[in-house]
């Protein structure tokens, strides 16, 4: 009898410890891992850009047409841009990686592989974690129309302005990342940006969306765009 009671209580303590450890892992350790992973991606981008190996347009004679919206030389799981959103914090910047696989989203924001390239005609759609893995989009509901979303690919600064959001929708609502997302109010083809994350904060029943349009571009030689200056 005593052995049974002892074993059961030991099991309960063990399970309790496991749960506490798991919570610590989800809340804290995924953030630590994601921060270092994101830093690594940013370092890789800076290194690549400093070497000047960014290919902005396909070499002459290559078959790819410049106006198409197919993902060009973005490599799956590789970083290709940095995103800045002043509303989420002056120092807020995250790498954008190609693809929205689970492992890719642990290292930064993910670009939907079948959507437009950065700055091109169509819809440049990006997904990010709201919670866990560095909480990149934790303050997503604070985004408002007029807020800047600035991206750089090492050659050009792209300043997008948010037009609508945060808009709550269902996970099956894939038309929010259409080239001309109907519910955004856009009616004509243009250079758009869509950000998606989960809603509620710790759940997965809905998604939060914001839409933006390309407002301005400038070469990196001209320094940071207006929206990033203090």
């Amino acid at each position, binding site marked *: 009898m005593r052995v049974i009671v002892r074993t059961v209580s030991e099991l309960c303590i063990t399970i309790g410890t496991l749960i506490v450890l798991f919570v610590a892992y989800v809340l804290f350790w995924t953030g630590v891992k994601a921060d270092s992973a994101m830093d690594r991606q940013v370092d890789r981008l800076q290194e690549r850009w400093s070497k000047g190996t960014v290919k902005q347009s396909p070499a002459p004679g290559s078959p790819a047409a410049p106006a198409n919206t197919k993902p060009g030389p973005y490599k799956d799981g590789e970083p290709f841009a940095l995103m800045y959103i002043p509303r989420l914090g002056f120092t807020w910047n995250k790498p954008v990686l190609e693809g929205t696989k689970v492992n890719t989203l642990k290292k930064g924001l993910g670009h939907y592989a079948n959507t437009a390239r950065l700055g091109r005609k169509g819809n440049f759609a990006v997904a990010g*974690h709201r919670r*866990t893995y560095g909480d990149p989009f934790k303050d997503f509901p604070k985004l408002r129309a007029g807020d800047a979303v600035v991206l750089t690919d090492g050659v050009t600064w792209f300043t997008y302005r948010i037009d609508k959001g945060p808009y709550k929708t269902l996970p*099956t609502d894939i038309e*929010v*990342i259409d080239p001309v997302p109907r519910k955004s109010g856009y009616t004509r083809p243009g250079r758009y940006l869509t950000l*998606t994350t989960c809603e509620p904060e710790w759940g997965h029943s809905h998604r939060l969306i914001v839409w933006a349009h390309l407002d301005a571009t400038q070469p990196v030689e001209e320094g940071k765009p207006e929206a990033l200056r203090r």
Partner: protein
Amino acid sequence: MYGWIWRHLPGNAWVKALISLALALLVVYVLFQYVFPWAEPLLPFNDVTVNDQ
């Protein structure tokens, strides 16, 4: 169960305590490195896309 482990560890109480600590750390390491990364995607925090890719 912990009593059983304690009785089967070699050495005196100090050695036993050290080995227990090492074992506990090993368990935590295995959990953080292998078990939790496997279990975490089963929770809903990863669903941030609209097309379930």
